[in-house]
């Protein structure tokens, strides 16, 4: 009798082990993620350690991003846009090409800056070391940070001087590659394709409105704006343009976009001086066909 029970429990354990192993394939589990608690981050001279951030994450981040880092925190159901699912390794704000992992410094910057017009606050009140540890903790949620290297950061050439000619070229780029399809002819986020935009999880999403005075989610500087459209915003409809816009023209586009924003700027002043008017889209939308 005793022998049979021992064999039985061995079999049960074996089955349990196999079941648990198969459960964790492709899905986030605490056990699977804990294997990566040795993850590190490197930002300048700082080195962050995932294990050191467990308490900080539980105190400040778990409410939205969830204990498994999958964006399913208890607050998530009431907020829009939804919190990031770190298990995918897909990030909007990157210096790297579309479809690749961000740099540690990209995550560090997003964490510190926060994402304007979303529920992600600025975490600059935390110390630099705490934030570096949190970057490592964010990375530990996705196995991709173990198996993949971050993408190569795109080269941002030095910013040229703003001139009227550059503004005009920038506007020509906006017309030619048809940014207005989503962002609208005046950059108000009301283009013909804007109403049906959805993100990678099929949730409705709005294109940026250059007139409403909000900061870009992925930064405030001209260099940030350059990187936003050249690398694209992964997880959203915004594609990368580095294959189709030359670096010099990209700066012209940055200047043109700045002239659309309500804040006072050199670009806005020059645009006003030369009487730059928003271009019309190639044709008015056609009426719906009779079905």
């Amino acid at each position, binding site marked *: 009798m005793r022998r049979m029970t021992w064999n039985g429990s061995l079999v049960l354990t074996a089955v349990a082990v196999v079941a648990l192993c198969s459960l964790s394939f*492709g*899905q986030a589990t605490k056990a699977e993620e804990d294997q990566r608690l040795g993850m590190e981050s490197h930002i300048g001279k700082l080195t962050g350690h995932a294990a050191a951030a467990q308490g900080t994450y539980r105190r400040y981040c778990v409410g939205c991003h969830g204990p498994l880092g999958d964006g399913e925190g208890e607050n998530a159901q009431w907020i829009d846009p939804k919190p990031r699912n770190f*298990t*995918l*390794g*897909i990030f909007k704000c990157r210096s790297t090409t*579309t*479809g*690749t992992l961000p740099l540690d410094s990209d995550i560090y910057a997003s964490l510190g800056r926060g994402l304007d017009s979303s529920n992600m606050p600025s975490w600059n009140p935390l110390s630099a070391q705490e934030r570096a540890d949190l970057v490592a903790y964010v990375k530990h949620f996705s196995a*991709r940070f173990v198996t993949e290297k971050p993408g190569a950061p795109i080269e941002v050439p030095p910013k040229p001087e703003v001139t009227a000619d550059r503004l005009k070229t920038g506007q020509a780029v906006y017309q*030619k*590659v*048809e940014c207005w*399809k*989503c962002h609208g002819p005046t950059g108000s986020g009301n283009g*013909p*394709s804007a109403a*049906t*935009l*959805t993100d*990678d999880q099929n949730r409705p999403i709005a294109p940026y409105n250059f007139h409403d005075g909000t900061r870009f989610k992925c930064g405030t500087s001209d260099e940030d704006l350059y990187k936003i459209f050249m690398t*694209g915003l*992964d*997880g*959203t*409809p*915004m*594609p*990368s*343009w580095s*294959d*189709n816009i030359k670096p010099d023209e990209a700066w012209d586009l940055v200047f043109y976009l700045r002239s659309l924003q309500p804040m006072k700027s050199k670009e806005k002043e020059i645009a006003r001086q030369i009487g730059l008017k928003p271009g019309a889209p*190639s*044709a*008015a*939308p*056609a*009426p*719906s*066909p009779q*079905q």
Partner: protein
Amino acid sequence: MKAFCKVAGMTSMLLLLAFGLLYSTRTVSAAADGKITGTVKLDGAAPHMKGIDMSKDPFCVKQHENSPAHLENVMVGPGGGLQNVVLYISEGLSAAEATATPSQEPVFDQKNCMYTPHVLAMDVNQKFKVTTNDQTTHNIHPLPNALAGNIPWNKSQPPGAPPIEMSWKTEEVAIPVKCNIHPWMHGYFVVVKGPYAITDDKGSYTITGVPPGNYTVTAWQEEYGTQTAKVTVAAGKAGAADFTFKAK
């Protein structure tokens, strides 16, 4: 004399035939040029494919002035043949056969605001090209399952953009592809291992380059899912597998 000539002639012919057969079977078994052929049909009434309202983009409307566009989820020919079904070998390939990557680069084209072909099949690590022939900006946005190995990307394709060359690193049946600017544009990348084929507008397919052996062939259709069949390919004898999907 006549009889002798007759016998000699027949014997030499038989000998020639025998040697010919011997030689030919040797060549066939050495090369992996076996085939699997068949037809995929839909049993039942084909669902109505809705017309597409392209009024968001006057260029797209103009391209379809004389031939209105319809959704392409289920394309059935007059004989009940199902188009755009991907056939691939899911069991029976050796490791070498499964990882062989063809050098051809299949092309996924954006034309008249639709994807051509609607479904593109390719092997793991096989390079493919995305092209645009439209005078309107598209973005090409495949949405694989990031947790299973292939990573989503999103690239712009304005008019005149050069082809985009990419590949996928893991099997995935299938990766949905969309254009965010033109929300009706839907297609699929089907990433498999080993030889594959797609049915034509009559529902017919031929998988080539299959070494003799016993295999399981899987047929995948975007609405109706998958079906499998066991197939044997022998030297000089093609394997055959027909499939019938039931209309919903």
